[in-house]
C-alpha cells in the first residue's frame, strides 16, 4: 500500500556525474556539496550544491590522485588533499588574484586522515597523531597554526552544524574525544567511552566510523552508536545507543533504540526523528526520542511505526532524449552503493544522485492507532498542522471514533502546546514592554510553529463543519464542544466567542434551553456583549433568557446603556431609571427617552413619577424644574398639564 510509505526521497535530487574509473566523487558534509573530479581535475571538477542553481565548474592541474576536496564556507578557498602529508589551497574569491599554497602537517611521521573547514578561512587537519587547527593567510601564501593537540587517532567524525569533531582514540577505538571549534578557538570536551558489546582479546580496533553517527536532535548534539548484536550477550537484536554530548559537562548515555532485528543498518535524522534503514528487509523504521514508551524502561524506545520501505522512487529521464512517452525508470532503493550522510542525505554515487530524505506525515495517521501517541508524534513534526487538523476531523467524523476520552486526550495535548506558545508570547511582550535594559539578554520573539493549533484553526477546519453533520447525534456534538471548552479552560486559555456561539446554536436548535441555562449559571459560557445580545434574541423562545442577558450585561459593567435600552423596550421605565441612578448616570440621560417610554405604558402614575423625577433633576442641575428646549420635552409637558393640571407642575423655588 503506497499510502503507508512514510519516508520519501525528495523530488528534486542533486544530480551529478556518476562515479567511474575516470570520475571520482567526493561529498562535503559541511557545504553539502558533491564534487565530481575527472582525471584528477585536469578535465574538470564539477561542484553541485543543495540550493546553488549554478553549479561551480573549474579545472585544475592534475598533480596526482585527489584524496579529499572541500570548499571553505562560502566557497572562498578550495582545499585539496593529494598526498598523506599535505593539503593544497587555491583561492576562489572573486576579483581576487589566483593564489595557491600548500601545507604539510606539523607532526613528524604523521599522515593526514582528513580535514574540515570550520569557517571561511579556518581549517582542521586530522592526522593519525592528533589535530592541527590552522588559519589560512592567502595573501601571505601561508597557514598560521592556531592550536594543535597530539593524540593517537583511529578515525574522526565531524559535525558541521555544531563544529564539533570526534576523535576515536585508544586501541579499541571506543574512547571518543570531542573538540569544539568556534571562531579561532578550539576547546577540548570531556572524552567518553562507548560500551562495546564484546571486548576482543587481544585488544584491537573494534569500533569503526561505520557504526557511529553524529547529529543534532531536538537542539541537542547526539552521538549515535549502532550496536550490533553479539553472540555472547543475551540480546539477539541490534540497537542504537544515543549519547548526548552537551556543550558543558560530560557526555552521557541517554537513549536506547530497539531495532528488533539484525543486519546492515544506516542512520539518518529527519525532522528530529532517528531513521534507521535496514538493508536486507529494505525497510526503514523511525524513532522519536521524546516519545515515552509506557511499557518500556526509561528511555528505551521501540519504533514509532512499523517498518516500511521508502516510497518507491522513479528516476526521471533527463536530457534531450527525455520524451513524455518514456516512463521514468524505477530506482533501486536500499542499494549497496548508497552512502548515507547526516543528517538526512542519501547519495547514490553509482547513479549520480543526492537525495534528501523526508518524512511524509499523512501515512503515519493510519499506522499509529493510539491517537494520543499519534498527537504526541505529530505535534513535534515540522509540517504538522493540516495533518493534525485532519486527524481531529477524522476522529470526530469517522466510524473509528474512540469516544470522548480519546477526544479529550487529543484536545488536551493540542491545547498544552497552544498554551505554551501563548505563555511564551506573553513573557516576550512583557519583557519588551519593560524595556531591553532590564532584561539581561534580548529575547527572541517566540516562533509560532505549526504545532500551535489555535481556536480559530479548530473552528475553521474541524468544529464548524462537524457541528453541522446531520448523521452525528447532537448529544455527541455538544459533548465534543464542551470537551474542547473544558480543555481550554483546563490550561486557562480564554475561549473565543465563536465557540460559545456554536454551543448555543446547538443547544437552541435542539431546544435544550435548560442545559444552556445551567451552563450560563456556572459561567461556562463567559460573559460578553455579543453573548448577551444572543441571549436577548432568544427571549421569544425561552423567556428566562431575557433576565440572563440583563444579568450578564450588568456583570460586564460596560453595558449600562444597553441595559437601559433593554429595560425601556420592556416598558420597565422605573427599573431603567433606578438602574441608571444606581450606576450614577442619571444626570446625563435623555429625559425625552424616558418620558416617551413612560407615555407608552399608558400608566399615568408612572408618567407622573418619571416626569417629577426629571423636574427634580432639572432643579438640582440648573436651579429650575423646567425642561430646556434642547431636551425636546414640550410635548410631554403639555400632556402632563393636560392630565394633572397646571398646578401639578413643580414650582420654581424662589429664594
Amino acid at each position, binding site marked *: 500500500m503506497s499510502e503507508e510509505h512514510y519516508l520519501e526521497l525528495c523530488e528534486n535530487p542533486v544530480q551529478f556525474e556518476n562515479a567511474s574509473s575516470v570520475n571520482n566523487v567526493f561529498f562535503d558534509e559541511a557545504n553539502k556539496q558533491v564534487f565530481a573530479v575527472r582525471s584528477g581535475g585536469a578535465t574538470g571538477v564539477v561542484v553541485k550544491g543543495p540550493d546553488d542553481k549554478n553549479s561551480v565548474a573549474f579545472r585544475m592541474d592534475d598533480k596526482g590522485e585527489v584524496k579529499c576536496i572541500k570548499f571553505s564556507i562560502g566557497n572562498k578557498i578550495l582545499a585539496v588533499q593529494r598526498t598523506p602529508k599535505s593539503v593544497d589551497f587555491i583561492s576562489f574569491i572573486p576579483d581576487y588574484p589566483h593564489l595557491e599554497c600548500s601545507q604539510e602537517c606539523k607532526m613528524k611521521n604523521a599522515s593526514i586522515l582528513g580535514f574540515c573547514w570550520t569557517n571561511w578561512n579556518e581549517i582542521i587537519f586530522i592526522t593519525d597523531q592528533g589535530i592541527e587547527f590552522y588559519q589560512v593567510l592567502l595573501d601571505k601564501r601561508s597557514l598560521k597554526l592556531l592550536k594543535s593537540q597530539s593524540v593517537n587517532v583511529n578515525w574522526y567524525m565531524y559535525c558541521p552544524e555544531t563544529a564539533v569533531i570526534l576523535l576515536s582514540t585508544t586501541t579499541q577505538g571506543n574512547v571518543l574525544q570531542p573538540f569544539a571549534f568556534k571562531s579561532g578557538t578550539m576547546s577540548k570536551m570531556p572524552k567518553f567511552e562507548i560500551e562495546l558489546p564484546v571486548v576482543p582479546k587481544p585488544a584491537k580496533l573494534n569500533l569503526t566510523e561505520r557504526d557511529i553517527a553524529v547529529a543534532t536532535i531536538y537542539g541537542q548534539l547526539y552521538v549515535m552508536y549502532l550496536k550490533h548484536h553479539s553472540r555472547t550477550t543475551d540480546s539477539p537484536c541490534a540497537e542504537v545507543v544515543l549519547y548526548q554530548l552537551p556543550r558543558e559537562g560530560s557526555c552521557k548515555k541517554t537513549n536506547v533504540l530497539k531495532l528488533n532485528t539484525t543486519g546492515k543498518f544506516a542512520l539518518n535524522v529527519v525532522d528530529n526523528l532517528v531513521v534507521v534503514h535496514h538493508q536486507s528487509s529494505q525497510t526503514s523504521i523511525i524513532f522519536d526520542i521524546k516519545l515515552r514508551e509506557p511499557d518500556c524502561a526509561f528511555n528505551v524506545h521501540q519504533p514509532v511505526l512499523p517498518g516500511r520501505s521508502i516510497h518507491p522512487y522513479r528516476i526521471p529521464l533527463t536530457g534531450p532524449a527525455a520524451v513524455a512517452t518514456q516512463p521514468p525508470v524505477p530506482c533501486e532503493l536500499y542499494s549497496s552503493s548508497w552512502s548515507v550522510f547526516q543528517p538526512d542525505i542519501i547519495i547514490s554515487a553509482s547513479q549520480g544522485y543526492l537525495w534528501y530524505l523526508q518524512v511524509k506525515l499523512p501515512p503515519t495517521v493510519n499506522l499509529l492507532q493510539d491517537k494520543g501517541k499519534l498527537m504526541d508524534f505529530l505535534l513535534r513534526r515540522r509540517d504538522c498542522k493540516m495533518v493534525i487538523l485532519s486527524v481531529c476531523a477524522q476522529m470526530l467524523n469517522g466510524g473509528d471514533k474512540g*469516544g*470522548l*476520552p480519546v477526544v*479529550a486526550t487529543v484536545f488536551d495535548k493540542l491545547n498544552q502546546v497552544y498554551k505554551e506558545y501563548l505563555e511564551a508570547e506573553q513573557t516576550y511582550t512583557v519583557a519588551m514592554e519593560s524595556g531591553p535594559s532590564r532584561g539581561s539578554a534580548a529575547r527572541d520573539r517566540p516562533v509560532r510553529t505549526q504545532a500551535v493549533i489555535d481556536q480559530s484553526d479548530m473552528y475553521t477546519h474541524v468544529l464548524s463543519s462537524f457541528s453541522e453533520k446531520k448523521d452525528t447525534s447532537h*448529544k*455527541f456534538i455538544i*459533548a465534543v464542544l*464542551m*470537551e474542547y*471548552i*473544558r480543555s481550554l*479552560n*483546563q490550561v486557562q486559555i480564554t475561549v473565543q466567542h465563536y465557540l460559545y456561539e456554536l454551543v448555543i446554536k446547538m443547544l437552541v436548535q435542539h431546544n435544550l434551553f*435548560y*442545559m444552556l*441555562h*445551567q451552563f450560563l*449559571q*456556572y*459561567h*461556562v459560557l463567559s460573559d460578553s456583549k455579543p453573548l448577551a445580545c444572543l441571549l436577548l434574541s432568544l427571549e421569544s423562545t425561552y423567556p*428566562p433568557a431575557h*433576565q*440572563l442577558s*440583563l*444579568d450578564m*450585561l*450588568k*456583570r460586564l459593567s460596560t453595558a449600562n446603556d444597553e*441595559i437601559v435600552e433593554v429595560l425601556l423596550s420592556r416598558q*420597565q421605565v*422605573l*427599573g431603567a431609571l*433606578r*438602574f441608571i*441612578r*444606581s450606576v450614577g448616570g442619571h444626570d446625563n440621560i435623555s429625559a425625552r427617552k424616558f418620558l416617551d417610554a413612560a407615555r407608552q405604558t399608558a400608566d399615568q*402614575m*408612572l408618567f407622573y*413619577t418619571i416626569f*417629577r*423625577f426629571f423636574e427634580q433633576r432639572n432643579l438640582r442641575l440648573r436651579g429650575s424644574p423646567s425642561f430646556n428646549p434642547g431636551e425636546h420635552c414640550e410635548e410631554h409637558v403639555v400632556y402632563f398639564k393636560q392630565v394633572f393640571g397646571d398646578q401639578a407642575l413643580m414650582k420654581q423655588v424662589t429664594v
Partner: protein
Amino acid sequence: MISPRMTLRMQEKQYTSSLLIFFIYNPSFGPQESEVENKIRNVGLCEAIVQFTRTFCQTKPAKSLHTQKNRQFFFEQEDSFWIVMVVRNPMGEEPNKDGKPQEEEGILVVLILCYSLFFLAMEAGLLQYLQTLHLQSRDLLDVFGGIALFPLDKKSYLKIQSFVNRVEESLSLIKCTAFLYNDQLIWSGLEQDNMRILYKYLTTSLFPRHSEPELAGRDSALRPEVARNLLHYGRFLTGPANLKDPEAKFRFPRIFVNTEDSYEELHLIVYKAMSAAVCFMISASVELTREFCEQLVGLVGPQLTLLVSDICEQYNVNRRISGLDKEPQFKFIYFNHMNLAEKSTIHMRKTPSVFLTSVHPDLMKILGDINCDFARVITLNYNPIRVITLNYNPIRVITLNYNPIRVITLNYNPIRVSSLNYNPIRVSSLNYNPIRVSSLNYNPIRVSSLNYNPIRVSSLRPSFDSSL
C-alpha cells in the same frame, strides 16, 4: 442567637400539625370502589364539599375547608382526579378568622408535590414520601420548592460535564444524568420541572434514608471497593446493595418524567460516592442486568471517586478565599423563579425531619405570610419591585421582591419577636406610589459579594437612594 436545638424544640411545641388522612379519588370511579366504609364516607364528604362550592364558582371550587379540629385540602390536578389531605390543627393555636395564608399555600404546595411525586415515582416515592412528610417543619423553602445549587468553579464544573458526557457515551442506555454534591444540584439532564420533583424526592426522601448509617460511620458501605484495580467509594442508593451478592436483585425504582408531549417511564439509578450522588435514568423498557450494573460500577466508581476529591478540594479552597466558612454577614433566603435556585443562610441544616433555622420560627412564619401576600399582590398589579421594611427595634426584617427573582432577607439577627405582628394590608398600601417605595432606605443584599456562584442573578438588583 438561639441554639438550633432550642429552635427545634420550640418548633415542635408550637407546630404539631399532623397528617390525619390522605387519599386520592376520582368521582367517576365512585360506584365501584366500595371497600371500607370510613374511606367512602371521607371521599363522599369531600366530593360533597367540592360539588357544593362549585355552585358558587364553576371554575374555582373550594381548595380548603377549615374546621375547629382540622383542615382539609382539595387538589384537582387532572380532570376528576382529586388529592385530599386532612391535617389536624395544631394544639393551642388561636383560631384565626382570616386563615393562615402561608400555611395554606404551604400545604397546597405539599399536595402538589405529592401529586408530582406520585407521578414521578409510582413505586418508590409516594408512600415513603408520606412517611417523611412532616407538616410542622414546612416553611418558606417548602413553599418555594426550589433547588439548591452547589457553588462550583468553572473548571470543576466542566470536569463534571465531561464525566457525565463520557458515561452517557459509553453506556448508551443512559438517557440522562443528574449530578448532585452535598445534596445540592450541579448538573441536570432532566428538564427543570422534572428535576424539581426529583430533587425533592432525593433530598427529602432518598438521601435522608441513607444518610444515617454514613453519619454513624459504622456502615460497611463506606469501605472502599475495588473495580478495575482502582479503589473507589461508590455504591448504589437504589437497586442492589451489594453487587457480589449472588441473590442481588437488579430492580430500580421507576419514575415518570414529563417529556414533550407525554410521560416517560424511567429506571432511576442513584449511585453515590462520598458526597456526590449521580442519578442515571434509563428507559424502563430496558431490563437492567447484573452485567450492566457491573459495567456501570467499573466505569463510574473510580472516576467519580477521583472527581469528588477534586471538587471537595476546590470547594474548600473557594470557601477559604471567599470567607464563606465564616458566619454570613447577611441573613437571607433567596429564590429565583427562573431557574428555581434557592439559597438560604437562615436554614442551617436540612435533616430528614426538620429544617433548623437560625431565626425564631415566628419570624419564619411572618416571612411566609409576606411571601404569600406578594404572590397575591403581584397578580393584581404587575410591578417588579416591592420592598417592605418592618422596623421593630431591634429586629429589622427586610423583604425585597423582584419579579421574577425573589429575595427575602433578614438583616441583623437579634431575636426578640414574641409580639411581632404583621399586617398584610400594608403591603397593598405600599403599592400606590412606587417612588416612595424606592426611597426606602435599603441597600439590598449583596449576594454577589457572598460569591455565591450559581446565582449571581442578584447582581442586577435595583438599588435605592438613602434619602429616607
